[in-house]
């Protein structure tokens, strides 16, 4: 069981020591990673994915439950602790949704009951319903992302989930993060999107390849995140209405902000 992971700081792109020396993330917590392009967000995620032991370019060290992971934990592909989810990911397998999920469940030694659960959960995250007989490769961006989130939550039992930008996906991002954290995962999300960044518990600010500081999300920010989420919901429902050929009449732009 993994209760927490700790990142011990290394060096930034200039070879200077990172200002943040230590960060611990607990089970069920959502952490954000923010910073301009090229500030080292993806490398930080990469270090966690590899459970780096001062052996990557940043010389960071990752502890699991306060201890160094064993060589076996780091290298046995069946024991991988980290699942990833990103905007760049696509489904490439030429199969139906049902066949694919069954194959994945078989690979992970999970039961077939999971497959229905994944599809049902995915359908709570996206507007257009996904059916088991759909071909994977024809799913829309939103459907694909929703299915990936549900699959990671239920079938990939990796305790750590790293999310690299899922902003323009057409899914309920807020709910997606809550689903993952609710399944007892340690969630880290790289994002520029205030809806996501402000719903995290804390966020690591990156600069020049180093962890600059850790900001705790204030109650005001959390409240704002709720309101931004409402805008998001409105966008999603409008999107579905347009998609279904409906005419939008007399729409009130009132989000109570």
């Amino acid at each position: 069981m993994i209760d927490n992971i700790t990142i011990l700081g290394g060096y930034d792109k200039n070879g200077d020591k990172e200002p943040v020396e230590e960060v611990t993330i607990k089970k069920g917590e959502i952490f954000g990673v923010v910073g301009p392009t090229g500030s080292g967000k993806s490398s930080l995620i990469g270090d966690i994915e590899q459970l780096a032991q001062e052996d990557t370019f940043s010389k960071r060290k990752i502890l699991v439950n306060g201890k160094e992971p064993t060589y076996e934990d780091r290298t046995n592909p069946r024991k991988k602790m980290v699942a990833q989810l990103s905007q760049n990911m696509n489904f490439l397998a030429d199969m139906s949704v049902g066949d694919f999920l069954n194959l994945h469940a078989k690979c992970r030694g999970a039961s077939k009951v999971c497959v229905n659960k994944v599809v049902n959960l995915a359908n709570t995250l996206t507007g257009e319903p996904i059916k088991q007989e759909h071909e994977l490769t024809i799913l829309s961006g939103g459907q694909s992302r929703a299915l990936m989130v549900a699959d990671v939550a239920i079938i990939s039992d990796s305790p750590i989930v790293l999310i690299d930008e899922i902003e323009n996906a057409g899914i309920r991002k807020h709910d997606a993060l809550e689903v993952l954290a609710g399944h007892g995962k340690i969630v880290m999300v790289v994002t520029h999107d205030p809806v996501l960044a402000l719903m995290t518990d804390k966020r690591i600010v990156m600069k020049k390849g180093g962890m600059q500081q850790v900001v705790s999300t204030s109650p005001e920010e959390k409240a704002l995140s709720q309101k931004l989420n409402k805008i998001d919901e409105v966008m999603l429902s409008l999107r579905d209405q347009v998609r279904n050929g409906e005419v939008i009449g007399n729409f009130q732009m009132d989000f109570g902000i």
Partner: protein
Amino acid sequence: MRMVIVAGTPGSGKTAVLIHALRSLNERNLKSSVVKIDCLYTDDDQKFSKIGVPTKIGLSMDMCPDHYAIYNLEEMISWAQENESDFLVVETAGLCHRCAPFTMNSLGVCVIDATSGPNTPLKVGPFLSTSDIAVITKGDMISQAEREIFRERVLEVNPNCKIIEANGLSGQGCIELAEEMLISKEVSLDEEKLRHSAPLAVCTLCVGETKVNKKYHRGILRRIDGFQSYQGE
């Protein structure tokens, strides 16, 4: 001297992964020499020379690139010895993937692209099943589920290999490959043997026949129904 033989599907990122790994060995003051085997064209020597690694190119032209690589190993080893290298790295452009150019004591590295589909590990044969290390690239472009399926399929074909998930662009995972190179065995040419025999390929097509009609063909021939025989004198 240690010998690392890297095989992989075209465009899978062999050169990119190697450049990151060799750079990491450079930093530890370990010298490598690279031989890049291709069929008709390559400019990868320029990429290797940018990181200061001596590189030789071998173009196999009409010969199978894997056969060509095996046939020329002696020259490659003595060239790398002249360079006083710690590692000879042979990167080969395999074609049909039925050959495995790996020798017993070399470090056999198979680079395989995760976007090529979940059945690819089952299709490629000895260059994956006899490798020591399977480097899986481009995993960041497919879903987590497909990654896990791909990984499982690689282990089905080669349960004893070590899997390294690498990214040729960022260099992630490449230091791990360098670590494996450090603990690989020494080679001596006289003792070296292939891990897997090359496929049967002695037929009239091998020596230049261009007519397609069956009656013009001799040699060890296999029919589409699976029947295999020797035709000829």
